[in-house]
């Protein structure tokens, strides 16, 4: 699809707005519908669209496999780390109130961090799955 101008232009125009929408869904989860899982999938979709149009190698140049794996790990670590941080501050595991001391801001901060961890893991796992499936096929066809 790399040589078709329609696909190239549409992918280039859509790439940034899709990620923008994903970030909105990610960080607006406490107020509207959305959260880490949906946002992660939406952001992964932007990168998959890029890889579909410009080729898997171009997609892998933006996020190499090693970075991708570290993103997967980092997401889970952020989530678990928030839990450990709340315990260090004297609260229960994943009870966000002690993070700042007040219920309102503590819960907001905790949910924001936790959802960010979820989003990071979901984005990178979806991307890794796509590249694992599509990459293996491309290898075999060559």
């Amino acid at each position: 699809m790399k040589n078709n101008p329609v696909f190239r232009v549409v992918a280039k125009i859509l790439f940034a707005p899709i990620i923008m929408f994903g970030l909105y869904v990610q960080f607006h989860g406490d107020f509207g519908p959305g959260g880490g899982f949906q946002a992660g999938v939406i952001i992964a979709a932007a990168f998959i669209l890029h890889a579909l149009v410009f080729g898997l190698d171009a997609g892998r140049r933006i996020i190499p496999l090693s970075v991708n794996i570290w993103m997967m790990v980092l997401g889970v670590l952020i989530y678990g780390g928030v839990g450990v941080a709340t315990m260090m501050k004297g609260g229960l595991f994943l009870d966000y109130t002690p993070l700042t001391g007040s219920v309102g801001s503590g819960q907001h901060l905790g949910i924001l961090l936790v959802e960010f961890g979820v989003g990071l893991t979901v984005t990178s796992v979806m991307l890794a799955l796509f590249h694992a499936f599509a990459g293996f096929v491309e290898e075999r066809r060559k």
Partner: protein
Amino acid sequence: MTALVIDIFLLALLVLIAVMVVRTARLFAVIVMSGAYSLTSAAIFVNLDAVDVAFTEAAVGAGISTVLFLAAMAYVPADEKPRGNHNLVAALVCVIAGMLLLGAVIELPTFGDIAAPVHQHVAPRYIAESGSALHIPNIVTTVLASYRGFDTLGETIVVFTAGLGVLMLLAGITRTHKMKRHSDKVSRPGSPKSAAPKSRAKGGSA
């Protein structure tokens, strides 16, 4: 009344798509129709005021799953293997299981019944507290991240483990192939056999 009409239309569409999925042998068409199935379910969830669930269903079920299935389809033949004779025992099991499920549906509380057990347990506390005590308007998010944070941690780890498993299985194989072809091109004697297990171990641990 309008909601009921829309519900009946969407459910009929759902059944129609399900029947078409069962009757179609071409896997490409099956994948596209399962995407349509997810999108129809998302519309039903919107009609039930479950916007968060609808959002997830549309993004994951209709979006990413379809793409991943299409990417995975290249591993398998394009058509389902035709099976001629129908199994009588399987049909019997299906009918019995279906009748049991229908019986269970009759026992369910009516839709939207406030006295139903599910609406009496912890849900009233979540609804009362989420906005006033935790200062977060979206109850779904507080249930997901605050009240049930441990469950969501488990879900995230499940996603992580699934990704890791696929990477170890498929990325490892890919790298072995690449190494093999590379060594074939260079045609160093004895290298393909010795390179393969090493590279697989490397692909698994990377």
